[in-house]
C-alpha cells in the first residue's frame, strides 16, 4: 500500500488527548459498538423465460439464447429432442449433464461417488443460481477509547482499542482487524514539551481470486470468482451441481468437455490471504527558546509487514497449463517510511500586526522490500506447502526512494481581519538524474473578513463574510527507477539436452534521464458567508489547477526498440467549482430542528499540451481501449473501436464529416473501425450530495442522497448480462431485429436474430457498444438515533448513551443503463492507478443496514 504524498511531508497524528481546559480533570471512557448486515446490492433482474442454448435450440453453452421454459410456442421445449423426452424418457427433463460428459473429463467414471445415477434426470426450469451464491454478510465492530488529562492540563493521554470483524457476502471473503493505540503529551518544567503516539494494527484479509473478465471465462491467467457467476445460464443449477471430483479434486461442471471452472470450486480451492502487521507513530520534542520562538524536532515512523499467500489447487479448468496444475505463492512485503523534521517557529505581535512563521528541513525515506517464492506443479492435491510442488521461481522486488526538503512559511494578519500567508519549499528526490532532481514551489494566499473589518455590515441578514484568494503549488515525484537502462536475464528460458538454457533480453522500458518532477499550480477564490443569524451557511470555491509535466508511462512503438518510457506530459488544466450550502429551516431548543446541507461540485480536466512529438498518449488501460490524453480533450476520455460512420473520416481521434449514419455490413451487423476514437468521457458533468437532518428532543433522523450527472462507463458486466440473454431486458427475443443504420447507402433493412443482435453486437461488437452513461442517484445513508435523556442516566456511571439504526446504499438507480441489469456504477475496474470508467466483471456493490450503540462514562 502506497501512501501518496503531494505536500512533501506525511504527518501522521492521532489523538493525543486534550486538556478539557479549565474543568476538573475528567478521565473519560467511550465505547462504540455496531453490527451491520451486508447484502449484495446489485443483483440483476434475471429473466425466467428462456434457458441455455443458442438460436432457441438447446445446448450446454455459455449463453442463454435457448428454448423457453414453456412446452408450447415456436421457442418451446416441446420441439427440443433433448428436453421433450425423446432422449431422456421424461418430457420436461434432460439427461443430467454429468451423465453425458466425455469420458476424457473423468466425470462419467465418478458418477457413483457423487451420487448421480447413470440415468439421472435434470429438470428444465429456471434456477436461482446467483441469488443463492451470495450470502448475507455482517460487520461487527467494537471500539473503546480512554482519555484524560491532569487538572492543570500539562499532561494528557489517550488510549484506544478497536476490533472489526467483516464477513462479506461473497463466500470466502473476510476481514478481521485489531487496532491498539497510545498517545500523550506532556509539558515539562524546563521549557521542553514532549509528546508521542504509537499505533499498532493487525489485519487479516481473505478473498477468493478476482480478476478481469470479458464475458467468457477470465481474461488472461488465474481465475476470478465473479467471471462466470453473473452469466450462469438460467437453466444451470450453480448451487446444486456437484463441483469437485472426489477422487482427483478437479473442478467439474456442466459442459461436456468440462471447460468452465465451477465457481464453487474456485471458492473452495483458490484464495488470496493477506496478514498485515503495521506500526506507525512518532515522537516530538520541542523547546521554547523564548516566549515567541520555538524549536522542535519530530520523528515519524510507519512500517508494515504484509504476509501474502496466493494459491490455487490443481484441477482448475481455466487459464494455461501452469494454472491448471496448481500454484502456491508466498511472499512478504515490508514497507518502511521514516520521517525526520526540524522546525523553528515564531509568533510575534507588532502593534496591530500578528506574524507567525515556520522554517525547517525534513527528510522522508521510503523502502519497499518484497521477497517470496512461487511454486508450480502441485503433487498431492490440497497440500499447500512448497515441498509439495515441482518447480520454484523467485518473487523479489526492491524499491527505495528518499526525498529531502527545505521550507519556509510566514503568516501575517492585520487586526485579525486581513490575513496574508507566504510559503516556499524546495525538494530533492533520489530517483531522478542530478540535473533534474530538485524543484522549487512557492505559494501565497490572502483572506479578508469584511464583517470584522467593517462591523457595520453585520446585520440580521449578514452574520459573517470572508473572502479568500490563494495560489498554491505542490510537487509529485515518480516511483521506482525511471531513468535506468535495464537488461533481463532468465535462467530457465528453455531446456536443451536435459539442462536449462539461460538467456538475456533487452529491457523493454526506455530509461528517461530527462524526467522531471510534476508541479501542480492552483489558483483558488472562495467566499464564505453566514446569513440570517447563522441559519444559512455558504462556502463557494472556484479553482483552476494546472498540472505541469504530469508523469505518466507512455507506450512506444516497439520498432524503436522499447515498448514504454516514463515521461512528462506538458500541461493539464483542471477547472472546477464547489459549493457548500446549509440551511437550518427550523430551530428550537427542545422542539423540532430541521436542516439541510447541499454540496455541489463540478470539475473539468482538459489536456492543453502533450509537449511531445505525439498527439495522443494512452495512459491507462490497453493500447486500443483505455483512457487517453489528447490535446483539447478531457483527461478522462475513453478511446476504443467504434461503429464506422458513413461518409466520415477520423481526425484527432474523432469522427468528422458525414451525417452521423452508422454503417451496417452485409451480415446485418455494425461495421467496426479499429482505429481508436473517443467513445466516452469518464468525467461526470457534476456531482451533488444532499443531506437532511431532522431532530426532535432526543431523537434524530438523517438521510443523505448522492447524485451524479454524466460520466461514462465501459461496462462488461452490463454487456455480458445483455449479450448472453440473462436479464429481463432481453425478454423480447423471438422476432428478428434490425440495427438502426445505413447499409450500402440505404437505410438498413437486414434482419438479424437475437443472438447476432445481442451477442455479436452488444457484447462482442465495437467497443463503443459497451459504453453506457453512468448518471445515477443513490440513497447513500439513512439513520435514526436516540440519545437517552439525562434524567434517565444521571444516577448511572454513564455520561451519555445513544443508539443509532442506519442503512447504507439502500437504494440506487443508474437511470440511463438497462433496467434489468441493476448495475451500480460505483466500482473501480482497473484497480489502483490512473484509469477511470471501466468495469471488467470485477464485482458487485454492497448495502449495509444495522445498529450501533455509543456509551460514554
Amino acid at each position, binding site marked *: 500500500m502506497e501512501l501518496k504524498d503531494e505536500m512533501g511531508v506525511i504527518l501522521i497524528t492521532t489523538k493525543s488527548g486534550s486538556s478539557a481546559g479549565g474543568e476538573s480533570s475528567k478521565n473519560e471512557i467511550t465505547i462504540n459498538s455496531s453490527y451491520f448486515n451486508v447484502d449484495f446490492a446489485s443483483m440483476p433482474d434475471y429473466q425466467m423465460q428462456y434457458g441455455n442454448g443458442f438460436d432457441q435450440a438447446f445446448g450446454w453453452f455459455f449463453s442463454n439464447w435457448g428454448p423457453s421454459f414453456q412446452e408450447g410456442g415456436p421457442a418451446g421445449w416441446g420441439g427440443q429432442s433433448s428436453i421433450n423426452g425423446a432422449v431422456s424418457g421424461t418430457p420436461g427433463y434432460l439427461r443430467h449433464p454429468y451423465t453425458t460428459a*466425455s469420458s*476424457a473429463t473423468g466425470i462419467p467414471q465418478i458418477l457413483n461417488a457423487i451420487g448421480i445415477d447413470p440415468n439421472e434426470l435434470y429438470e428444465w426450469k429456471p434456477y436461482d443460481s446467483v441469488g443463492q451464491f451470495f450470502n448475507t454478510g455482517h460487520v461487527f465492530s467494537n471500539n473503546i477509547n480512554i482519555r484524560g488529562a491532569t487538572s492543570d492540563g500539562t499532561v494528557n493521554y489517550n488510549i484506544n482499542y478497536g476490533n472489526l470483524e467483516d464477513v462479506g457476502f461473497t463466500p470466502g471473503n473476510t476481514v478481521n482487524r485489531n487496532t491498539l493505540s497510545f498517545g500523550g503529551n506532556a509539558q515539562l518544567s524546563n521549557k521542553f514539551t514532549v509528546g508521542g503516539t504509537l499505533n499498532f494494527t493487525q489485519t487479516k484479509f481473505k478473498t477468493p481470486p478476482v480478476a478481469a473478465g470479458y464475458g467468457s471465462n477470465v481474461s488472461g491467467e488465474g481465475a476470478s470468482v465473479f467471471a462466470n457467476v453473473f452469466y450462469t445460464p438460467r437453466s444451470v443449477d450453480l448451487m446444486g451441481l456437484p463441483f469437485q471430483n472426489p477422487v482427483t479434486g478437479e473442478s467439474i461442471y456442466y459442459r461436456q*468437455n468440462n471447460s468452465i471452472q465451477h465457481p464453487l470450486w474456485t471458492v473452495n480451492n483458490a484464495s488470496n490471504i493477506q496478514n498485515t502487521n503495521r506500526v506507525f507513530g512518532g515522537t516530538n520534542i520541542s523547546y521554547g527558546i523564548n516566549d515567541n520562538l520555538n524549536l522542535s524536532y519530530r520523528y515519524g515512523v510507519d512500517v508494515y509487514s504484509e504476509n501474502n499467500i496466493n494459491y490455487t489447487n490443481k484441477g482448475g479448468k481455466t487459464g494455461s497449463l501452469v494454472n491448471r496444475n496448481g500454484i502456491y505463492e508466498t511472499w512478504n512485503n515490508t514497507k518502511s517510511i521514516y520521517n525526520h523534521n526540524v522546525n523553528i517557529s515564531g509568533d510575534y505581535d507588532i502593534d496591530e500586526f500578528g506574524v507567525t512563521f515556520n522554517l525547517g528541513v525534513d527528510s522522508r525515506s521510503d523502502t519497499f522490500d518484497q521477497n517470496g517464492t512461487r511454486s508450480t506443479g502441485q503433487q498431492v492435491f490440497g497440500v499447500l506447502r512448497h515441498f509439495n510442488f515441482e518447480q520454484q521461481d523467485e518473487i523479489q522486488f526492491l524499491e527505495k526512494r528518499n526525498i529531502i526538503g527545505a521550507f519556509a512559511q510566514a503568516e501575517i494578519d492585520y487586526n485579525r481581519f486581513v490575513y496574508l500567508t507566504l510559503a516556499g519549499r524546495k525538494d530533492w528526490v533520489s530517483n531522478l538524474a542530478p540535473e533534474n532532481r530538485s524543484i522549487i514551489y512557492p505559494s501565497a494566499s490572502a483572506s479578508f473578513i469584511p464583517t470584522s473589518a467593517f462591523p457595520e455590515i453585520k446585520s440580521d441578514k449578514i452574520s459573517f463574510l470572508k473572502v479568500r484568494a490563494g495560489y498554491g503549488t505542490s510537487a509529485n515525484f515518480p516511483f521506482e527507477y525511471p531513468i535506468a537502462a535495464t537488461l533481463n536475464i532468465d535462467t530457465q528460458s528453455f*531446456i536443451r539436452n536435459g539442462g536449462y538454457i539461460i*538467456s538475456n533480453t533487452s529491457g523493454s522500458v526506455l530509461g528517461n534521464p530527462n524526467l522531471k518532477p510534476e508541479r501542480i499550480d492552483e489558483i483558488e477564490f472562495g467566499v464564505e458567508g453566514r446569513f440570517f443569524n447563522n441559519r444559512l451557511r455558504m462556502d463557494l470555491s472556484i479553482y483552476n489547477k494546472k498540472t505541469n509535466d504530469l508523469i505518466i508511462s507512455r507506450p512506444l*512503438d*516497439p520498432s524503436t526498440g522499447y515498448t514504454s518510457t516514463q515521461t512528462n506530459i506538458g500541461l493539464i488544466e483542471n477547472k472546477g467549482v464547489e459549493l457548500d450550502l446549509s440551511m437550518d429551516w427550523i430551530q428550537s431548543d427542545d422542539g423540532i430542528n430541521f436542516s439541510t446541507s447541499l454540496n455541489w461540485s463540478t470539475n473539468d480536466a482538459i489536456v492543453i499540451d502533450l509537449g511531445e512529438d505525439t498527439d495522443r498518449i494512452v495512459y491507462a488501460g490497453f493500447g486500443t481501449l483505455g483512457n487517453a490524453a489528447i490535446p483539447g480533450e478531457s483527461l478522462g476520455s475513453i478511446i476504443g473501436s467504434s461503429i464506422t460512420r458513413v461518409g466520415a473520416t477520423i481526425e484527432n481521434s474523432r469522427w468528422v464529416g458525414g451525417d452521423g449514419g452508422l454503417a451496417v455490413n452485409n451480415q446485418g451487423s455494425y461495421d467496426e473501425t479499429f482505429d481508436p476514437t473517443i467513445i466516452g468521457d469518464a468525467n461526470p458533468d457534476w456531482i451533488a450530495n444532499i443531506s437532511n437532518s431532522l431532530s426532535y428532543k432526543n431523537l434524530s433522523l438523517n438521510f443523505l442522497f448522492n447524485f451524479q450527472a454524466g460520466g461514462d462507463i465501459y461496462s462488461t458486466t452490463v454487456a455480458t448480462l445483455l449479450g448472453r440473454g440473462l436479464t429481463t431486458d432481453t425478454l423480447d427475443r423471438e422476432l428478428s431485429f434490425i440495427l438502426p443504420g445505413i447499409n450500402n447507402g440505404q437505410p438498413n433493412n437486414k434482419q438479424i436474430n437475437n443472438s447476432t443482435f445481442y451477442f455479436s453486437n452488444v457484447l462482442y461488437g465495437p467497443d463503443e457498444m459497451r459504453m453506457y452513461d453512468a448518471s445515477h442517484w443513490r440513497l447513500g445513508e439513512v439513520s435514526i438515533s436516540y440519545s437517552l435523556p439525562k434524567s434517565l442516566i444521571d444516577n448511572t456511571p454513564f455520561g451519555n448513551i445513544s443508539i443509532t439504526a442506519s442503512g447504507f446504499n439502500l437504494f440506487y438507480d443508474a437511470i440511463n443503463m438497462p433496467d434489468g441489469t441493476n448495475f451500480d456504477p460505483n466500482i473501480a475496474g482497473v484497480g489502483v492507478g490512473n484509469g477511470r470508467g471501466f468495469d471488467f466483471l470485477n464485482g458487485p456493490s454492497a448495502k449495509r443496514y444495522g445498529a450501533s450503540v455509543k456509551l460514554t462514562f
Partner: protein
Amino acid sequence: MKHINYILGICLSVTLLLASCETTELDLTSNPNALSPEQADATFFLNSIQVDFAYWVSSMGDRGGELTRINYMNGRTYNNVYSPDSWDGIWSSAYRGMLEDIRLMNLIAEEAGLSFHIGMGKVFQAYIMLTLVDYFGDVPYSEALQGAEGELNPAADSGEAVYDASIALLDSAVQDFNTSGPVPSDDFFYNGSRLKWIKAANSIKKKALLNKGDYSAYSAITNYITNSADDFQFSWGTSPATPDTRHPLYSSNYTSTGGGEYMSNWIMFKMLNGHAGNTDPRINYYFYRQVSETPGFDSNANEEVLECGLPGYYVPPQYRNDKTPFCAPTNSANNSAIGYWGRDHGNDNGIPPDGFLRTLRGIYPAGGAYDDESFTGLVDGSGAGGAGITPIILSSWMHFMNAEVAVSTGGDPTSETLTAIEQALNKTDDLGGPEISASDISAYIAAFTSDWNAAGSVADKLDMWSTEYFISLTGNGIDAYNSYRRNGYPRDLQPNIEPDPGQFPLSQFYPANYVNNNSNASQKTTKSERVFWNSNGPNNLK
C-alpha cells in the same frame, strides 16, 4: 542552565545527523531489480533470439496457414479477421524482442570476434524483415531501434529497400560463417555446422528472389537445402511449465478440457480423397480423430455439437458443388467423414462443448498423437507430449519452388514436383509413429503421377502442385500465403462460408502499437494494398 540546554540541543542535532544518513542518500537511480546493459553476454542473447524466433515463426506461420486453408480461419469477413491489435505481440517480439537483442549482441560479438554468432543473427534478421514486408509492406528498418538516441517515431522504409538490405545481409552472413569464430554453446538449429547454416542462408535468399521474380539469380544459387538432412527447423520439447517447451500448437490442442483449435475441413478433405482413390498416407500423422463417426455424416445428427450436420441444413450457394467440402471433410459426392471433424473457412459460430469430439493435430508437426484408430478423447501429455518441429525451410519446399521456377521459365515442373512429394512423405514419420513404408510412398506417387498426366492444362497441373505444396507447408504457412498471392493456385480452395467476405487480404493492417504510438505511421484504409513484389499478382483470390 543555559549551557545545559545548548549542550542538549547540540547532542540532539548530532544524533539526528547520524540517524538520518541512510535517509538522505540522494543517488538511488539504478534499478536493483534488473541487470544493467554492461552485464550482458552474447551467447545468452543468442539463446533468447533463437527461442523467440521459433515462437515468432510459428505465430506468423499460423496466420499464413489460416488464410490459405491449411489451418482453420475464424471469421467472418476478411476485414474483421486479424484486427490491428492482434498483431501487437508479433511486432513487439520482432523489433523489441529479437532485432534489438541482435543489435546488442553484435556490439559485444564484434569486439570479441564471435562471427558465428553474428552470422546466425544475420540469418534471423533477414528472415524476420522479409516476412514483415511480406505481411505488412513498408516497415521501419533504417530508422528503427534508435529509441535511446531519441528517435521515437521511425519512418517506414519501402518494402523493396528492406528486401535488398536483407538479401545483402544473407550474403554477409555466409561470409561470417566462413570466418573462424567459435561455435556458440547452444545452436538449436544445426549444432554448430557452418555448412548447413550457409545452405540455410542461401535457401532464404532463393525464397526472397523467387518473390521478386528474379529467376536467373534464383537458379544461380546451387548450395542450398536439397535433402532433409539439412532442413532448417526448430525442435520443441515436452516440459509443460517453467519453462513450457512444448510445440505451441500442441499446448492449444491437448488440454484438460479437450481441443482448443479446429482443423481445416479443406485440407482434411484433400488428404482423405488423395489421388486416384489413394488416401494420402500422411493423414494419420497430421490428424488424430477422437471419435470414429461424425454426427450427421456417419451417424445421427447431433444439433448440440455439430449443428450443420442436421438434414436440410442451409448450404451457402458457393458450397453447392463437389469440389468443396461443407461442415465436415466431405461433400455430396462421398458422404462419409469417418470421424474427421473440423470447420469451414470463415465460420465464426460459438463453441459447442465438442472439445473431446473434434479432430486434433497429430504427431506431425506438433508432436501430438498418431492416429492409430483408438478414437478416445485426449488430454495434455498424450502422444509425443509436444516434441514437434516448427519448419522454417524444408528441402521439399525448395523442390516445390524449383518446379514453380521451371514453369515460369518455360520448362517442365514434373521431376521437381515428384522429388518434393517424395521428400515430404519421407519427412512425415520423422517425429514418431510407424514408418511409412516405401511401397505406400511409391503407390501414392504413382497415383499422383497418373492424375498429373491426365490433367488437361498447365493450370490443372498447378492446382495439384500447389495443393501438395500447401500440405507440406503445414506448420508454417508463410510461404503458402506468399505463393497464393504470387500465383493464385490452387483455384479450388474452399471459399469463405460468407458469400460476400470482401477481398482476400493482399497485405495486413499495421499493428495497433505501431500506428497508435508512432506519429510517422498511419493505418491502411484497406487490406487490398499490394506488397511491392506482388504488384502484378492475380486478382481473383478467394
